[in-house]
């Protein structure tokens, strides 16, 4: 177990380092002089020189890379060019909004998708299986940003049920929840179908195993067989899927944050790209990738903790 943990951790660190390197190379392959791009054409030579020195842009590239990596590892994500604030601080303000949205979206998808998948696997080819099958392909096929737009059209503009702009008044939980419903619906909808299909497939496989047949032969009630013995095994591939799909979930939150004008990391990246505020973009992208790697790591560890076979195979 410890060896597995160590290997998996090492891999995550390497992936984050590679991502940092890719980001660094991308940032330094911007055509033109990074100083004038960051400060604009009207900056005086003195300001440009001061900025170059402060950002270590006057040093050779490998040296810049080392400085970049070491400051990232120390938790320093750099300074906002415009407001002179710490990028880390800005992101720490935005991150909770993104995480809330991601958790809410995934949460309702899990609550609905996993039971749907179970039911279709218990009664294959029944009406509930067919409806779930068509619904899941349907929901997977509609891109989340389109769901966002259409949800705004139906629930906000035509029916006037829910607000659509922003994240709600601070301190007013009910208002914030009302603002969360539509974005979470839009981001999570595709996941309902995805999870239902995945759970159905692995449940069908598990239900055919010998130990399930034995459990049935012993006369255990169907409820116990399904929820005590089949589901815990069938859920494993789904946990991996959630981990791997988290990147897609983050893409969904980016769109939702932009369309619903919600604060969050995705929106910060989008806005700062338009403003060409590169230190913030860089920091936010790094945080997103780190978040993704951590979630994948957790899901992998969870699976290996639940299923000893995975542990031994690695």
């Amino acid at each position, binding site marked *: 177990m410890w060896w597995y943990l160590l290997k998996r951790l090492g891999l995550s660190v390497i*992936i984050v380092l590679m991502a940092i390197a890719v980001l660094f190379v991308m940032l330094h392959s911007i055509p033109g002089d990074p100083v004038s791009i960051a400060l604009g054409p009207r900056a005086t030579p003195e300001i440009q020189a001061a900025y170059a020195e402060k950002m270590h842009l006057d040093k050779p590239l490998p040296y810049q890379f080392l400085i970049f990596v070491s400051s990232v590892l120390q938790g320093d994500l750099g300074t906002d060019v415009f407001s002179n604030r710490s990028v880390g601080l800005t992101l720490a303000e935005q991150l909770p909004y993104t995480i809330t949205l991601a958790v809410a979206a995934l949460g309702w998808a899990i609550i609905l998708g996993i039971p749907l998948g179970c039911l279709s696997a218990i009664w294959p080819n029944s009406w509930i299986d067919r409806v779930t099958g068509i619904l899941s392909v349907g929901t997977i096929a509609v891109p989340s*940003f*389109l769901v966002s*737009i259409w949800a705004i059209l139906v629930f906000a503009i035509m029916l006037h049920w829910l607000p659509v702009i922003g994240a709600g008044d601070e301190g007013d939980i009910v208002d914030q929840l009302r603002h969360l419903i539509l974005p979470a619906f839009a981001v999570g909808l595709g996941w309902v179908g995805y999870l239902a299909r995945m759970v159905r*497939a692995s449940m069908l496989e598990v239900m055919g195993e010998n130990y399930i047949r034995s459990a049935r032969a012993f006369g255990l009630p169907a409820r116990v067989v399904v929820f005590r013995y089949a589901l815990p095994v069938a859920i494993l591939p789904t946990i991996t899927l959630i981990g791997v799909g988290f990147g897609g979930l983050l*893409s969904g939150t980016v*769109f939702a944050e932009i369309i619903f004008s919600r604060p969050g990391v995705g929106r910060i*990246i989008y806005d700062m790209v338009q403003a060409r505020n590169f230190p913030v973009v860089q920091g936010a*992208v790094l945080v997103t990738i780190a978040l993704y790697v951590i979630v*994948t790591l957790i899901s992998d560890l969870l699976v290996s903790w639940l299923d000893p076979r995975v542990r031994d195979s690695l």
Partner: protein
Amino acid sequence: MSETRSDIPLEVPPPERPYSVGREKLWLFLRNPMGMFGLILVVIFFASAIFAPVFATHDPLTMDIPARMSGPSADHWAGTDQLGRDTYSRVLYGGRVALKVAAIGVSVALIAGLILGMLAGFGPRWLDNLLLLLFDTIRSFPTIVLALAAVALLGPSMELVLTIVIVTTIPGYARLARTSTLALKNTEFILAERSLGASMPRILFKHIMPNVIGPLLILAAMDVPVVVTIEAGLSFLGLGVQPPTASWGTILNEGYLIIRDSPWMVVAGGVPLVLTTLGFTFLGEALRDVFDPKLRQGR
């Protein structure tokens, strides 16, 4: 007693239609209503994109300011946009952008992924590990974040959209090709070929590729919706195809800005996107069920 058994025909007469794997697969496919539905949608997608100038009722770029933001009418079947351009014609021309991105993006990613995957599976261990690490790194970038970073640096363009699509979809093909190659690597016919002194390119392209490419083609059909969605999403954010060129993404973007005055555009821009994704998903799943039932258990 001259009757011998020789009058019993020794050969069974051949059946009128010899059994053929291809015909059976075709029959299996034709019997799948979802697959046929998908195929019809895909054919409509190709036809409407290729023959857009024939089907269009207006020029997609001609403005008619007095008739702006109108609803569906006999003249403008899907209404007009904020500049009075015909939405129906723009949606048709937008299909061309989607088709172009899908065709180029998927084929380049398929070929590159196939080669990289076979190399990873057949080549030395260190190359395998290096390539796997590279694929994992690419996968760890959420597509849209990668796209935002790239656009920040290079500016929005169609070429950039294509590059992003290709880079982010290569790992899927490569991993699939790698797994199949690994399974084939030590089979007798490959070992025989090796012992005869065949070169690596010969083994890879002549013997491994035909056995590996099937599942990749199915993945390609299922990747088309992904690619079309990436293009539409980026164009919606203003990071892809630039106005005045019509793309489903730009139509949705312009429609979103006037959603309160004229809700028709976000419907007209979204419906073809959904139908195309649905069509390719159904088609891909039907093909997968026919050709490779093993893949059914998720990728």
